[in-house]
């Protein structure tokens, strides 16, 4: 007797029915205030009727602590805490409470609150997470070792509102929420300056702004995800993520306007994923490299100089790329780019409050090579100028903490590359390198990119009409991104054969190679094409 093997389609239907057959908890939608759903983790807490206000995650090389601070929109305020592991804890509203959690074979257990107060900052160092309280007391909250003891903290006011709790606590140099929108008060020599932000979207899920505090040889970074707290769509809700790596002086505040994650290579050959921030306070822009185990340095450029050529703004350009140029002199009204091989296009992309402007400079021709940036005031008078070495743009600077050099080049005429080297006094030289294919995806301004671990690539070169991966044509679709006329994204999957790497080649209509690069994929990557909706 023989049995006939069902065909693949029948087997798939059977498999999916089995996999989908598990019980589904019946959760009434009334129990979920969707406007408060701020993240997947938070959503889980939320639909368990843990109102969510803020997620705080502190990380370091060997430390991970997660806290979800929750609030209530319900008539009866609740203070409930969930860790990043989804472990809920009942908490008393209106006060900070810390619980010590201990790992057991059955999971975590927790004790009664051991302290209370207000946690004003987070510090992560040497395997511990500390919560600095308003009283000045610093309490070690979390250590990770053999016994894996964990503490979590709540910040829920009597009405269950995180922002209302924070607002009266916010003094100069601390982040705040104003009218439910992202805002920050930056203290710079006693002159508070209110800056607000939007669309600082790093990972595609949250609005984000970044605060950096610095002192001589250490830096701390706090990242605050912000958004409307007044019932706006969920993605505009705020989640806070506090991340700091060293003790810091909160009176010395730098505001980071940009944030990039990149790989930092150390002299000893090791490397780690880290964050580079670029920004500055009102008249002192800076570049910072946060560290998870390495020295970091705030870097200062003189007013009027292009403070950075940001990979974050980098465009993939066939022959050469110019990134955003930041001008910090308030008198600068425009930037003129001079070069050879065509005409550039200069656009002011942001005029942020304060004295920071960004100008996006892009050649209108692929043969254009920039040679000179001229900063002009409103009357077209020259304020400052910056000269690009041929094929390479290098900006250098010094600060009391050390020196830095930022080099941008396009060595192969295809892939733009930027290298930031920092040399802190008494510290270790650190180098951060990123390239045009490292940019995060942006569905409104598709970039040519390769992002490890996530969506793969979009192709924006307007001349590209055909893309091949290992000789196989990939499907291109026109993008409707507002800023991406003639842009294409690859919607096909180049990894059909499960290969981990290969050559990606783009051609123009005449069949000429526009780019030809090696790309890598891992097991769970896929090509990304974000439709306009939803």
């Amino acid at each position, binding site marked *: 007797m023989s049995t006939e093997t069902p065909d693949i389609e029948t087997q798939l239907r059977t498999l999916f029915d089995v996999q989908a057959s*598990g019980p589904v908890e019946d959760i009434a939608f009334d129990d979920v205030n969707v406007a408060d759903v701020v993240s*997947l983790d938070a959503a889980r807490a939320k639909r368990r009727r843990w109102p969510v206000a803020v997620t705080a995650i502190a990380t370091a090389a060997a*430390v991970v602590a997660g806290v979800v601070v929750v609030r209530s929109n319900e008539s009866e305020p609740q203070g409930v805490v969930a860790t990043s592991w989804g472990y809920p804890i009942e908490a008393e509203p209106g006060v900070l409470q810390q619980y010590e959690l201990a790992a057991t074979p059955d999971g975590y257990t927790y004790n009664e609150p051991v302290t209370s107060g207000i946690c004003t900052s987070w510090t992560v160092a040497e395997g511990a997470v500390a919560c600095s309280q308003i009283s000045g007391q610093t309490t070690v909250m979390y250590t990770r070792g053999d016994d894996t003891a964990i503490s979590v903290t709540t910040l829920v006011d009597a009405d269950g509102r995180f922002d209302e709790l924070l607002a009266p606590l916010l003094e100069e140099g601390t982040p705040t929420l104003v009218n439910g929108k992202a805002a920050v008060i930056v203290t710079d020599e006693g002159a508070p300056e209110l800056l607000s932000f939007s669309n600082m979207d790093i990972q*595609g899920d949250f609005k984000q702004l970044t605060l950096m505090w610095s002192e001589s040889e250490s830096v701390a970074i706090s990242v605050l995800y912000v958004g409307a707290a007044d019932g706006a769509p969920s993605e505009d809700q705020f989640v806070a993520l506090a991340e700091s790596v060293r003790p810091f002086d909160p009176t010395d505040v730098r505001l980071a306007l940009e944030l990039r994650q990149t790989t930092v290579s150390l002299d000893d050959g090791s490397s780690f994923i880290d964050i580079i921030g670029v920004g500055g306070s009102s008249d002192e822009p800076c570049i910072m490299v946060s560290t998870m185990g390495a020295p970091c340095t705030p870097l200062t450029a003189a007013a009027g100089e292009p403070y950075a050529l940001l990979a974050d703004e980098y465009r993939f350009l066939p022959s050469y790329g110019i990134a955003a140029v930041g001008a910090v002199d308030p008198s600068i009204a425009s930037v003129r780019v001079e070069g050879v091989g065509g005409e550039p296009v200069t656009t002011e992309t942001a005029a942020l409050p304060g004295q920071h402007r960004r100008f996006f400079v892009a050649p209108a021709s692929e043969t254009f090579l920039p040679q000179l940036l001229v900063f002009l005031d409103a009357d077209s008078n020259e304020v400052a100028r910056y000269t690009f070495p041929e094929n390479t743009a290098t900006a250098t600077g010094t600060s009391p903490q050390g020196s830095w050099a930022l080099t941008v080049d396009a060595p192969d005429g295809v892939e733009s590359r930027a290298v930031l080297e920092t040399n802190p006094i008494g510290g270790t030289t650190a180098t951060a390198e990123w390239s045009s294919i490292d940019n995060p995806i942006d569905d409104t301004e598709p970039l040519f990119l390769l992002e490890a*671990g996530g969506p793969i690539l979009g192709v924006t070169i307007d001349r590209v009409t055909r893309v091949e991966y290992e000789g196989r044509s990939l499907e291109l679709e026109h993008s409707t991104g507002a800023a991406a006329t003639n842009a294409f994204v690859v919607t096909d999957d180049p990894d059909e054969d499960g290969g981990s790497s290969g050559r990606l080649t783009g051609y123009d209509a005449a069949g000429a190679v526009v780019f030809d690069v090696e790309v890598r994929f891992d*097991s769970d990557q*896929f090509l990304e094409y974000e439709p306009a909706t939803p």
Partner: protein
Amino acid sequence: MQIVTTEPAGEPLPDFDDFYRAEWPRAVRLGRLLTQDAAAGEDVAQEAFSRVYPRFDDLDAPGAYLHTTIVNTARRWHRRREGERQRLPLLTTAGVTLPQGDDLSDAVAALPYKQRVVVVLRYYADLSEAEIADALGCRPGTVKSLASRALAQLEKVIER
């Protein structure tokens, strides 16, 4: 099994509560299949409903919109999880994976995301190529190509 919500012509659209109640279990199951993670499936469904909710009254076909949103939300989940895995390896939890145990389920889980979406929507949700294309934001031809490659890969596995 049919997961798609149809909106018969001429009949009033359901209000959101009705829509939610009707679609929630199936949305969770679809999320599970796309993420291959039981808890994440619930998260994805919840997130998707939260995105549908503010637009619900303006949608002609909320069921289709929900599908697309689930697909995109699951994709973001994959992105985020991979990012966390790289950046915050200690924070990343394993999750509760779906029942596995045979070559086919392993092979489905190992498919590139878009291919997995196609086979799940095709053989679990019974969507047409056009509907899948809408959900993926691509052309029907791409769906056909993805499905072909996915099935070929899966057949290779089960023939071993």
